């Protein structure tokens, strides 16, 4: 097996994101020589034998991050570069790969060695087709999807080579912002994903819409169950088109073809038809249940484990009583 560089960045306080330790596990599963390169705040006292640190590199931004990655790849001399698919790496690493004359592949969910050559697997067409592939070009930079490997422990490196990297940027990091509504969207640590579909805002049995009650039931569940809150595109789009809808839902909540693909153990869909563009975002939800009035909806066709054909308002009223 060729030499591997595991490239990671630090997060606030100089710690290492869990996804980085998962990527390290993926590298170890391949065998062969492994070097670890770290950049960011406190990188010099982290797990890497190669480090780029300094004020300029503590800010997550393209120019400085790409320069740090480029320097670490060159210094390592590795043919294979594995990095966690965090937003920071996803932004900077493709540029760094281009600078070192390499190629990059992302969203890697599996790594294996066949006849001494590395083969990787990833999804195509938004989790609708699974493929395995290899490349002859080197360096081959791979961004590994979080959750693909069990994280391993890593101790600080004994000897650290700190690289001197010059990089300037006309971009300044300002800070992080939660959605204006104050409602959490995707909580990576949550066990359950709760999805609200467009049916919550439709006319109910009495011929009236009950949007305020829908909001209360949805938020009541999300807060009590400490779940992630997701939505279908149709419900989010209704909001941006000026229709009276659930005000706390934004595009950040959107799951599916043009939204996110979260990883939770369980998922509960309510008032959502389970159409394919939405359900592709459920690819990594292991246990799926849905509450819907339509017994022939998409969930019934092999997309959920259990479909409850029932009024979601009634079910959620009862469920919230039980879990609150």
């Amino acid at each position, binding site marked *: 097996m060729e030499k591997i560089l595991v490239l990671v960045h630090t997060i606030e306080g100089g710690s290492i994101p869990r996804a980085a330790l998962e990527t390290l596990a993926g590298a170890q599963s391949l065998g062969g020589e492994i070097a670890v390169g770290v950049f960011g705040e406190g990188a010099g006292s982290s797990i890497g034998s190669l480090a780029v640190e300094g004020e300029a590199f503590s800010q997550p931004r393209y120019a400085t991050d790409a320069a740090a990655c480029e320097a670490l790849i060159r210094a390592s001399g590795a043919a294979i570069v594995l990095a966690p698919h965090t*937003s920071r790496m996803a932004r900077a690493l493709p540029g760094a790969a281009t600078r070192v004359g390499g190629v990059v592949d992302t969203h890697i969910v599996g790594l294996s060695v066949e006849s001494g050559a590395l083969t990787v697997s990833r999804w195509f067409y938004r989790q*609708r087709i699974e493929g395995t592939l290899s490349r002859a070009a080197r360096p081959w930079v791979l961004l590994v999807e979080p959750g693909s490997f069990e994280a391993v422990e890593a101790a600080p490196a004994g000897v650290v080579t700190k690289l001197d990297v010059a990089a300037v940027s006309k971009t300044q*990091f300002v800070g992080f912002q939660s959605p204006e509504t104050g409602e959490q969207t995707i909580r990576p640590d949550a066990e359950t994903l709760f999805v609200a579909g467009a049916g919550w805002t439709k006319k109910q049995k009495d011929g009236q819409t009950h949007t305020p009650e829908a909001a209360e039931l949805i938020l009541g569940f999300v807060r009590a169950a400490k779940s992630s809150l997701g939505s279908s595109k149709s419900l989010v789009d209704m909001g941006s088109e000026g229709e009276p809808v659930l005000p706390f839902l934004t595009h950040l909540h959107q799951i599916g073809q043009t939204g996110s693909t979260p990883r939770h153990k369980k998922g509960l869909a309510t008032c959502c038809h389970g159409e394919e563009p939405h359900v592709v975002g459920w690819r990594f939800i292991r246990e799926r249940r849905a509450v819907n009035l339509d017994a022939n909806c998409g969930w019934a066709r092999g997309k959920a484990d259990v479909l409850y054909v029932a009024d979601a308002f009634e079910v959620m009223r009862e469920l919230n009583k039980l879990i609150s």
Partner: protein
Amino acid sequence: MPYQIVVCGGLAPDPLQTLEPVPGPTAPALKNEMMLPGVLDPWASHALYEAANLAKKHPGSSIKLVSLAPKAKLQQVLMTIAQKVPFELVALDGANNGFSDANETGKALGEAIAKLGLPLENLLVFGGYESATRGAGVVMQIVAERLGIADVFLAVDEIAVEAAGSFTVKERVEGGKHMVSRCAAPPAVLAWATGSLPEPPNHPQTGMANMRVIMPSLQKAAPTAVPTGIAFTSASLPKLVRETRIVKDTPAAEIAQEIAEWLKQ
């Protein structure tokens, strides 16, 4: 300040279509690929709408849509897109699907934009942060490298231009948060997530004006071969189909109890 906005956008199969991979000469392809109805890639569409919104607020700005796609298919899709917002087309005629090489696609688009010879001081390059086909999320960074642009933003939901010409960008990051950055000035590359704008309604006059320049551009589209460095071992549909248990005619309280127990497991 008027901007030169270049939007990179490819095509994707209509999301409601069934996709089935079939072997191809150098890489897998989709069954009946040329027959599948296409759309402008969803994130690239958002980038185009955001570009139009920005151009409207900054008179004198122009938008160029650079697209690498089979010419005939591109023409079909543009009949709809051209009615949404005003833009000029720069077409590259080439096969480009989910199994094509994102690295090579990025290089081809970067070359095409570089050939336009646009001044960098007011250049903004937009595109989707991933495609709905490859979903790689690397093309815009490769374009930036080819153009020598060192300010790149990924999964952008908002750009706010300030009076001095600097601008603030919100990018999606982990945990459902936005990362806020301030860039002093163009040039910059912004790879868009969904943004916050709805799809603009069709406007026939805009469509007619666009098509007058789009059709000649399509006729002049340069044949663009996108080599691939990928050796595919397999491409297949996921095998897991769940056996759905359908629970009907059951009181809501009983269903709630069952769900509550499942959540506790």
